[in-house]
């Protein structure tokens, strides 16, 4: 009896597949090839090549203009000059040293601010009383641009490492706080009913329902917090420091070494992008189960 049903289902599946197949089969070979080319175009050229067209063109024109002597190197050094400055800094070991200092600062500030954001976000997300007590204050502080309080932080903590970490920390706290809160509040109420029916303990509810369901929000918060930490780092180091990529830029500015300013900017951009990509890989690793529009 049941085997009969399985057979019917299999047939139905077969029919569906056959229908899909007949749809493509009616296309001519020519159309098929065009379709394949367009698939290749979409996946490879669109994904990578198309995005590179404008930057490559800009760099080419820029280099030409520099070599022809149309632009003064103090105003805008040519790409190859910047590349040479980068190579020099890399070989002398200066670059690695300053980059290490910068990553250390951003990482420390992000870690402290992120953990605080995660904890407070979880607290206000899980307990309504905590949300009533804490959330209004957090929301007020959130609307103060954290870079505006940088002078105050320097006044309190001086020009040392602490004030830099505090500036980065105060920025990276909020994205993680808000997205953890929203992630927890966004958990489907219907699944809470399932947890009740399955007799989950409060701890099981947290571990098996709330945490996985809020993970997309938490990971988004992590990514945004990291980005804000990176921006905070630039500000903290430009305000005053003796090392770090921001210091490199500041020092080069005073010496009118524009090429090194560009090197610093490029380092900030590239490392920031690498960190962001890393977080996206982590997202994909943990959120493969998601069934949402992928574009």
């Amino acid at each position: 009896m049941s085997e009969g049903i399985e057979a019917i289902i299999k047939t139905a599946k077969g029919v569906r597949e056959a229908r899909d197949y007949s749809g493509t089969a009616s296309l001519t070979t020519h159309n098929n090839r065009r379709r394949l080319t367009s698939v290749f175009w979409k996946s490879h050229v669109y994904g990578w090549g198309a995005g590179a067209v404008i930057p490559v063109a800009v760099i080419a024109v820029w280099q030409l203009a520099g070599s022809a002597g149309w632009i003064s190197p103090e105003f805008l050094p040519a790409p190859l000059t910047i590349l040479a400055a980068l190579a020099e800094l890399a070989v002398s070991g200066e670059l690695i040293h300053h980059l290490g200092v910068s990553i250390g600062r951003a990482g420390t500030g992000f870690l402290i601010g992120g953990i605080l954001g995660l904890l407070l976000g979880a607290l206000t997300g899980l307990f309504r009383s905590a949300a009533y007590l804490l959330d209004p204050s957090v929301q007020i502080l959130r609307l103060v641009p954290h870079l505006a309080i940088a002078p105050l932080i320097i006044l309190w903590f001086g020009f040392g490492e602490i004030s830099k970490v505090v500036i980065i920390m105060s920025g990276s706290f909020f994205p993680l706080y808000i997205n953890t809160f929203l992630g927890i509040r966004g958990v489907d109420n219907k699944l809470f009913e399932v947890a009740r029916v399955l007799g989950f303990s409060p701890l099981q509810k947290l571990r098996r329902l709330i945490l996985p369901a809020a993970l997309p929000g938490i990971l988004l918060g992590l990514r945004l917090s990291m980005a804000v930490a990176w921006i905070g780092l630039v500000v903290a180091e430009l305000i005053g420091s003796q090392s770090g990529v921001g210091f490199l830029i500041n020092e080069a500015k005073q010496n009118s070494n524009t090429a090194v300013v560009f090197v610093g900017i490029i380092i900030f951009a590239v490392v920031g992008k690498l960190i962001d990509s890393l977080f996206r890989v982590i997202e994909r690793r943990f959120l493969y189960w998601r069934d949402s529009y992928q574009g």
Partner: protein
Amino acid sequence: MGEALLSIRQLNKRFDTAGGQVQALEDVELEVEEGEFITVIGPSGCGKSTLLRIIAGLDTGYTGSVTLEGKAIGGPGIDKGFIFQEHRLFPWLTVEKNIASDLPLGRPDIRQRVDELIELVKLGGFETAYPRELSGGMAQRVAIARALLRSPKVLLLDEPFGALDAFTRAHMQTVLLDIWRRNRTTMIFVTHDIDEAVFLGNRVVILEPRPGKIRKIVPIDLPYPRKKTTTSFQELRLKVLNYFEKVDELELKDGAGI
């Protein structure tokens, strides 16, 4: 005949709404024996879901008594399996992990029971699939397996096949009867499809709306497996249908959902 497995006496439930109090259930009396397959049918708003949720311990604030094996329903728990209209699986867990949920799949006895249940609900080969990869009928079968793993004393099903197409629904009905035949789990199945109620139940409880009240309990003494085309099935179907005065309120089309 011993004491009933589930006993509902003088059950009354009111809801407070913006327009005042609404009597959702009035003087409901029902005794369910172990191993029975009860179907509850009625138009929307008759309180059939409320009745099921009270038995599950999900809804409280009623008067009267509801007892399972002589003990009052305290709250939700694994002795009362519940199947919702939607599958409500955890989207981040595979089929087998959804069935196990909070129970460790690593334990040999649980692993074995999960494998048996996957066999029972005919999902072999889909153990490691995610809910988004399943059809509605398959997902609902996972939900049934998840409830059965906890060996519930009673399985409560709230229009579980309401969102499925007629073909899948018919298939799911046979799968469910097969499970019932093998496990003898007591079933209380809420639906508003008369065919489904008569096809599945050995008793059909007919509820009337506003206030939700039992109008009639019709025993269906047809042997399983039943055939919807036989004269005796059609006669019982008409008998059930006749208990509805306001026929307009009910969709009479074959396989009509919701």
